[in-house]
């Protein structure tokens, strides 16, 4: 529940009603920034997964997964003001849902036993974080 | 012989009252005075019924109102601790003798704390008698009713309002050997500038320099009125002398 609240607060800053294209772009940029930060953090944890305890990893991933999930669904619920904005939305929600999905997969692996291929997961997350950052740069907030 | 001089706000009101053995009893929420030619302090008043009127406003009325609601008496009065029991006035006010504890403390102990395991068990030594109260203390008998009252001089020109009350320990005997604190003067501030916070006094109330300057500046033009200069102690208080004849407060902190 708490994580939902964290996420809501996170989203409250990014996804309150948007009126024009410029605002919409800014909000999209801020959302991407926040998601990139979460993804980079998960990557950092996954890289040194061997050093960390399982309850800790599980708590950390649950936190991030819930936050990303809510960012994703909340941003998707904001009506884009124009066709251009709709394209922006399609782009950003694709990125954030991919992030949410990756973290969820990792979380499931941790819950079952341990992360199967930490190196590949870290590389994927790094790639995703880069793409989110690139998006954030295109839409500066 | 002149007795010890105190200022009611500065030295007495709002101080902690402790028993001789160090246990805490209450605060000096107000003082009860015996009116007359030479009025003097007879008791410390404590509890919400004494504090409420001083806090004032909605909160103050709420405080007294709730207390009245839960008290069985027709005309509930604040707790009185007679001044004859006071053995020392310092950073706390020490009282001797057998002073009953507050009703709320008793109630909370009996209903909530004693039933909990490990509270220290029932102790017959503490089964003190219930507080003794007399009828309601009327407003005019409370020292706080003087504070904030308007003061006008012989010709009806305004002097200001009462900021503090000076007490001198040379009144009638209380108990066996304690002399009562007699009301001996008023500190009158030209407008509502709050308490003097001790910076009106002599060498003691001197630092830090910046605070002293600010507070004394807020109270510039304050006057000291001795009890003999008061004609009619009603509301407003009328003096027997013109404003110009009053001592400026600076006399108190910069004696010449």
């Amino acid at each position, binding site marked *: 529940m*708490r994580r939902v*609240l*964290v996420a809501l*607060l996170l989203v409250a*800053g990014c996804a309150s009603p948007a009126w024009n294209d410029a605002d919409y772009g800014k909000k999209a940029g801020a959302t991407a920034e*926040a998601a*990139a*930060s979460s993804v*980079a*953090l998960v990557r*950092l944890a996954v890289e040194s997964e061997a*050093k*960390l*305890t*399982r*309850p*800790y990893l*599980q*708590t*950390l991933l649950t*936190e991030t997964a819930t936050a990303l999930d809510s960012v994703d669904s909340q941003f998707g619920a904001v009506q884009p003001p124009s066709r251009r904005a709709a394209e922006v939305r399609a782009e950003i929600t694709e990125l954030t849902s991919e992030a949410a999905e990756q973290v969820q997969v990792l979380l499931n692996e941790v819950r079952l036993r341990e992360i199967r291929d930490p190196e590949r997961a870290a590389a994927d997350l790094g790639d995703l974080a880069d793409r989110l950052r690139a998006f954030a740069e295109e839409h500066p907030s | 012989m002149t007795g010890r001089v105190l200022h009611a*706000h500065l*030295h007495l009101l*709002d101080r*902690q*009252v402790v028993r001789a053995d160090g*246990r*805490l*009893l*209450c*605060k000096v929420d107000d003082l009860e005075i015996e009116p007359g030619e030479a009025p003097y302090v007879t008791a410390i008043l404590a509890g919400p019924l004494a*504090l409420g009127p*001083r*806090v*004032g406003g909605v909160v103050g009325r709420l405080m007294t109102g709730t207390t009245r609601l839960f008290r069985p008496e027709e005309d509930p009065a604040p707790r009185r601790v007679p001044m004859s029991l006071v053995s020392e006035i*310092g*950073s*706390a006010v020490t009282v001797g003798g057998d002073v009953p504890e507050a009703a*709320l*403390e*008793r109630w909370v*102990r009996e209903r*909530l*704390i004693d039933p*909990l395991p*490990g*509270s*220290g*068990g029932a*102790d017959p030594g*503490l089964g003190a008698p219930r507080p003794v109260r007399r009828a309601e203390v009327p407003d005019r008998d409370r020292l706080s009713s003087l504070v904030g009252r308007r003061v006008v001089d012989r010709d009806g020109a305004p002097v200001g309002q009462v900021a503090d009350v000076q007490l001198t320990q040379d009144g009638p005997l209380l108990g066996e050997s304690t002399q009562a604190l007699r009301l001996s003067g008023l500190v009158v501030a030209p407008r509502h500038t709050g*308490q003097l*916070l*001790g910076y009106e006094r002599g060498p*003691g*109330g*001197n*630092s*830090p320099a910046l*605070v002293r300057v600010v507070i004394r500046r807020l109270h510039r033009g304050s006057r000291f009125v001795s009890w003999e200069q008061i004609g009619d102690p009603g509301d407003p208080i009328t003096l027997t002398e013109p404003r110009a004849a009053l001592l400026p407060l600076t006399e108190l902190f910069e004696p010449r």
Partner: protein
Amino acid sequence: MKRFFAVTLGILTAIGGFVDIGDLVANALVGSRFGMSLAWVVVVGVVGICLFAEMAGRVAAVSGRPVFDLVRERLGPRAGLLNLAASFGINLLTLAAEIGGAALALELATGIDYLLWVPAVGLVAWLVMWRVRFETMERVFGLAGLALVVFLVAFFALGPDYGELGHQLTHNPSDDGAATYWFYAVALLGAAMTPYEVFFFSSGGVEERWTRRDLGVMRANVFVGFPLGGLLSIAIAACAATVFLPRMIEVDTLGQMVLPAGLAFGQIGLALVVFGVFAATFGATLETALSSGYSISQYFGWQWGKYVRPREAARFHATLLVSTIVAVALILTTIDPIKVTEYSLVFSAAALPLTYLPVLMIANDPDYMGDRVNGRFSNTLGTAYMILLLVVAVAAVPLMLATKAGQ
């Protein structure tokens, strides 16, 4: 050894003030966003709290009067009640947050949702306040909180770029606006100088029955405890500036902020840091709960303290019990404990002058202090801090509104 134990009151007080749940996260957040560029605020805060805690401790030792007695006596019933309402409200919010924080630490250790731990933490905290002697309490939780020193060791083990961190001391690496920077400056100063620290410290001095002879012990408490607390909070920011800032990660949860210790020392580091976080937040739980009891009892003149049996301080213990229950209920509404402290920090910054002005005045009053009144040094510095606190009090709420609490 005895001398060492004598300073545990200062350590427990400082840990509750500098590295409680809100500060743990705020320090890490600041480190990850602003690098070391806000470290100076912690230094200013440490000097300020040392100054006023020393005055409050000296008044308590010489006259036996704790801080809220002074507040009521100098400010009078009306302004005193205003301060009581503000401090009590802040205390209760902070208490709720600390209980939540201790429960979060247990979640990090076990993986079991924190909400299930909340009632247990509340119950144990109450039992400690109900039964455990003050000295035992302060020793156990003060010393356990020292486990957070792992952040300091981790900082060196992480192989930081000292040149870069040194550069950040004077150059803000963030591209956020000045308002956000100053918002965090105010929040950190408010965190360092929270009023409940002096309530707890001076009341603790009375609980330990300090007298004039103990002024040396009191000073040792102040000058060991608070700088240590400040050092830990700088270490947390430095770890975050080393690990998170270069990777552009902004931390805002407890789980994230302990990661540097895990990266440096693996599972042992992680276990130590989670233990330290639990001890610090649990210690802060006791500190805030007791402070709420102290402040209300001292305003109304009730018997308070753990130096008498609970039944002799019935209203005080009733306050502790009710505050703990209310705080547990508050945190069970799933309100975010960290957000709660972030707001309460800003409000407490706004209430600071109301607490510190009476302390400064009474530390100068020969009626209370005899020949132990403030010297010129304390007064000059004290006046400078009063001006600073007034500025902070005025700026706190507008800054919070302008920056949407630092977003």
